[in-house]
């Protein structure tokens, strides 16, 4: 059973709390069955933009018991469940800078230069894995972000579609997936509208019949269109079928889980609160087992966000072009650290959330990294990347690859870990097994 209730003594939650009625999306429809099965494996990807000050990010020594770098310090308490992977590279060159960094991280592909509909990157590893392990889930995967890009007109890499920067996730080389920024919308998607189970069942039946009916209409409409439009409408028909499957999965769910979260009110003005809410939603989504794969773009490439809360008044992107000025580099590193601090709070929550015989962290593999090395030069490598969670293998390691190893090699190893057999991804030329 999902129980949304008062949890944290923080203002955002407190304010929202009594304001909302958040009832379980499934009330008790059967006894708890989960004790019998082994806990599921969860996968997460957390992205930060504009590269990093690499010498503060990457450990100076490699192997077990490496020297902990200053930027990763907030993660030190979890070092036994953490692996830093060094010398990874994204595909392509620095042409296309921020666009190809975001689009290349999970694809291993150098995104095509175009502003038109012929965008081309690659299916992302999260989607490829979700397609296999997420099929029984209410949501095969979740795609989350924080920045409303509608206020960034003209802020995309020239010649490259904004899409490349607005999302990290691609269902296919030509299908970017939107990322949701509104915590309240995420909450409602996860836990649905309220009501008794009979009401919800009736609603789901109604959803099914609407879908059946519009798919008939779409098939009819398709015949009157030109070939390109017909292809677009075919995708729409596929989408309808996928949603039908989700409804079926929701109806098939008879187990129960108890989660603790309040319905958020919307997008908080504070970045820190916003990020905390999005992380909390990820935690409960894992906990309630409505999804096993989540990708979260904590901030967007070329973000011009300023961080007055840590006394950084210059915009992030501007600072990332530090020109090796020590003061700017220090501020940039401060932003890098601040982002890791936010991520570490999430890790801590995963670590303290019980799951089966251990914690959620024990049964997770969460990557935290970027598609750009040194932001100053839009470098393709070395990419900052750390894996956290019980599924990362033996912890407390800095695994150094040979220089410019495609990050896609790591993603192939991750797929194998989740029992998904993929023989190549983008520019992969090997497999890294953690």
């Amino acid at each position, binding site marked *: 059973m999902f129980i949304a209730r008062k949890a944290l003594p923080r*203002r955002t939650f407190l*304010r*929202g709390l009594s*304001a909302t*009625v958040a009832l379980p999306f499934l009330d008790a429809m059967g006894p708890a069955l989960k004790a019998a099965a082994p806990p599921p494996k969860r996968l997460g990807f957390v992205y930060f933009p504009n590269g990093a000050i690499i010498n503060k990010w990457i450990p100076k020594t490699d192997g077990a018991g490496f020297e902990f770098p200053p930027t990763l310090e907030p993660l030190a308490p979890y070092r036994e469940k953490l692996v830093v992977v060094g010398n990874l590279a994204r595909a392509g*060159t620095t042409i296309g*800078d921020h666009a190809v960094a975001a689009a290349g991280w999970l694809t291993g592909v150098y995104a095509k230069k175009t*502003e*038109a*509909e012929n965008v081309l990157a690659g299916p992302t590893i999260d989607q490829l894995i979700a397609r296999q392990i997420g099929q029984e889930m209410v949501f095969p995967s979740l795609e989350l972000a924080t920045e409303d890009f*509608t*206020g960034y*007109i*003209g802020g995309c890499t*020239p010649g490259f*579609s*904004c*899409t490349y920067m*607005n999302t990290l996730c691609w269902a296919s080389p030509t299908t*970017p*997936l*939107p*990322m*949701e*920024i509104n915590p*309240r*919308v995420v909450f*409602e*998607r996860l836990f649905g509208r309220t009501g008794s189970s009979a009401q919800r069942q009736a609603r789901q039946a109604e*959803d099914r*019949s*609407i879908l059946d*009916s*519009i798919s*008939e209409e779409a098939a009819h*409409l398709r015949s*009157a*269109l*030109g*070939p*390109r*439009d017909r292809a*677009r*409408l075919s*995708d*729409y028909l596929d*989408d309808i079928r996928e949603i039908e499957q*989700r409804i079926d999965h929701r109806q098939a769910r008879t187990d129960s889980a108890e989660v603790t979260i309040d*319905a958020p*009110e*919307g997008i908080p003005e504070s970045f820190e609160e916003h990020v905390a809410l999005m992380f909390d939603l990820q935690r409960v989504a894992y906990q309630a087992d409505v999804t096993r794969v989540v990708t979260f773009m904590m901030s967007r490439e070329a973000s011009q966000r*300023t961080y*007055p809360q840590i006394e950084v*008044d210059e915009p992030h992107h*501007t600072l990332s072009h530090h*020109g090796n*000025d020590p*003061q*700017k580099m220090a501020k940039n590193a401060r932003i890098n650290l601040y982002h890791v601090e936010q991520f570490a709070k999430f890790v801590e929550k995963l670590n303290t959330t019980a799951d089966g015989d251990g914690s959620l962290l024990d049964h997770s593999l969460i990557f935290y990294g970027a598609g750009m090395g040194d932001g100053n030069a*839009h470098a393709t490598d070395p990419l900052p990347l750390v894996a956290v969670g019980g599924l990362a293998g033996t912890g407390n390691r800095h695994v150094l690859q040979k220089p410019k190893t495609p990050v896609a090699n790591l993603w192939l190893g991750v797929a194998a870990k989740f029992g998904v057999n993929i023989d190549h991804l983008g520019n992969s030329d090997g497999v890294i097994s953690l």
Partner: protein
Amino acid sequence: MVCFARCLRPIIFGIFIFTAVAQAQDSRDAARAAITRYCTGCHNERARTGGLVLNPASIPSPPETWEKVVQRLRMRTMPPSSAPRPNEKTYGQTVAWIENQLDAAAEANPNPGQPLLHRLNRAEYANAIEDLLGLKVDVTAMLPPDDSAFGFDNNASVLGLSPILLERYLTAADRVSALALADPTTEPSSETYSARQDLSQDQHIEGLPFGTVGGMQVEQTFPLDAEYEIRLSFFRNNLEIMRGIERPHQVELSIDGERIFLRTIGGPEDLARMKNPTDGSDAIDARFRIRLPLKAGLHEVTATFLQKRGFGTARLQGFVRSSVDTFEVTGRPHLEAITILGPYKPAQHSGKPGRLNFTCPQGISSCAREVLEPLARRAYRRPITAEDMRPLVAFYERGRAQGGPDRGFQMALRRILASPSFLFRAETSPEHLPPGALYVLNPVELASRLSFFLWSSIPDDRLLKVATSGQLARREVLESEVRRMLADPRAQRFVSNFAGQWLQLRNLRNARPNSGEFPDFDDNLRQGFREETELLFASILHEDRSILDLLSADYTFLNERLARQYGIPGIYGSNFRRVAVTQDARKGILGQGSILTVTSHADRTSPVVRGKWVLENLLGAPPPPPPPEVLTSLPDNAEGAPPQTLRARLELHRANAICASCHKLMDPIGFALDNFDAVGAWRTEDSGAPITATGQLADGTEVNGVIGLRNAILSRPEIFAGAFTEKLLIYALGRGLEPNDMPTVRAILRQTAPDYRIASIIMGVARSVPFQMRKKPED
């Protein structure tokens, strides 16, 4: 004598033809000679400078090459200043000749393109719901934002679909139909409206009652006749201490202008509560809650503070912005949010919040058809077939059987809003035509193009009627419809969607100038900036002025806050009014804070960004991106060295030939605007040194300051009008432009010169080949 005229005519005609042919040959030879003399020295097979080879004998083919040449020649960016350049006359004649060839080729072989199947974007969806059902809904909580391409979010290339998006559109259909039919099972929920933290609330706020200061006003559609709870919360600082409560203040809550309560905040008792700030502040907030019955429909909820005479003398306020830091507790209290909860205890037979207010006697299907048919017609934007009606009636019957007629209509409406005919702007491809054939859109499809262009929404009944009857195909009917639509209040959506994106006014939302450098900047100013430019654009639209007025208008729209920023005396109050601009530098958008702020960094101006913005948006000549591996940030002042002006630091761009090739185009434009700081205030110094706002534009024109820059742009009005027309065409068609669209742009410019009236340009777009026609795909 009879013979004279008759016999001579062929001869005269012959002479005329001969002369015309000879002239044409002359100008052809002259143009080719000019290209050979000035261009092919570098752009030949051997040198291939810039990867470009020009063969003057091939003009106008390939069009993408020659359109590029035309643009460079028009902008006078080629040949480079280091090489011999033609004189103005040769420039003009050569460009004109190449353009004529391109235009003639396009006319002989028009290509209107094939825009992709276009999903309603978020704004269009919200507008369609409002126009169809009379319901204002907060669509940002239902649908994710849309990607944009070529500068606009109505671009079909990025308006595809994915399972997540479809799921969201289906959820939206569910929500909206429940709202429209006042679904009695609607669960209580909450909406919170927050003020931005940098909103100054020590002055009167536009739109709020006179005699009040601060506060906010929200509009919300209430779903049922029911009870609702309204809660106010007040701003607290970082330590949870409530702001501005040393003294008592009166808080007024009103709905639709009628006072609901007047309660006191602050004073000794509240101040004493701050010994325990969180509990104390919670206790104060708890006093500002009320539960009350309200009718379904749109209501305006206002919370504000009564003005107190003489208040404020105890506080030394150094800045216009009332809350410079997050520890501040002095000054006035600030409203942080209005939260509305409900519905509770709904009435037995609730009214409906929107326009869909009708009653059908129980069980009469013909009545249902009478309601559903016009609804579907407007939603689908075309005549309704029996096949369209079948599922709607089926869903109606199914719902009616479950819960009566309203439930039936709710189901049928949900089905309409989920329909691909509603969600997609489909344009059919005629079966009988061969691939590659051109065809004129049918008038019903044209009506949708017009309404999404000018209203960002569905056509109204009248437009659909003239389309269905076929009259819209007539030029005078098209023109009168366009004029009618521009005069309609819905044209405001064109202002905010088109101008908001073209001029990047939407980016103001993300502008956060540092409070260290710009302590006066607050949300009041941010909103004011946007309003000023939108009002100017709207006035040009409504008065059918020249688009050039956007640069040179001798009037603008100001309130006190904006006038103070601009140093214009004598304007009091928060309301915007039309004001004559007497300072030449402030005329037009180049003197407006909106543009000057969105093209600046948080801590300083950016002549480069400003230059790029002008080139891209006003001159239609975007510079290429910086080459990879080039550091694009400026070094700071060296430690201990005397401070340098930004201009001196940007001189680096000239020192490097690679940088100089583009920065010599951008930087001088930005320097000309450097008397405006990063939030649009006038200044004469930077880092203690006087501003030097002089520079040389790409065509060699020396400019000094914003006035010189503006005059230089206005001296070649066809370039600015051309940039505007290009953007307008992208927006109207929902696709990027191809080289073979440029003849269309030039044709519109020729029709509308020299006045370039905005309605004429819009009309030119609406009549153009790509707007009126499609090409059947080849495959």
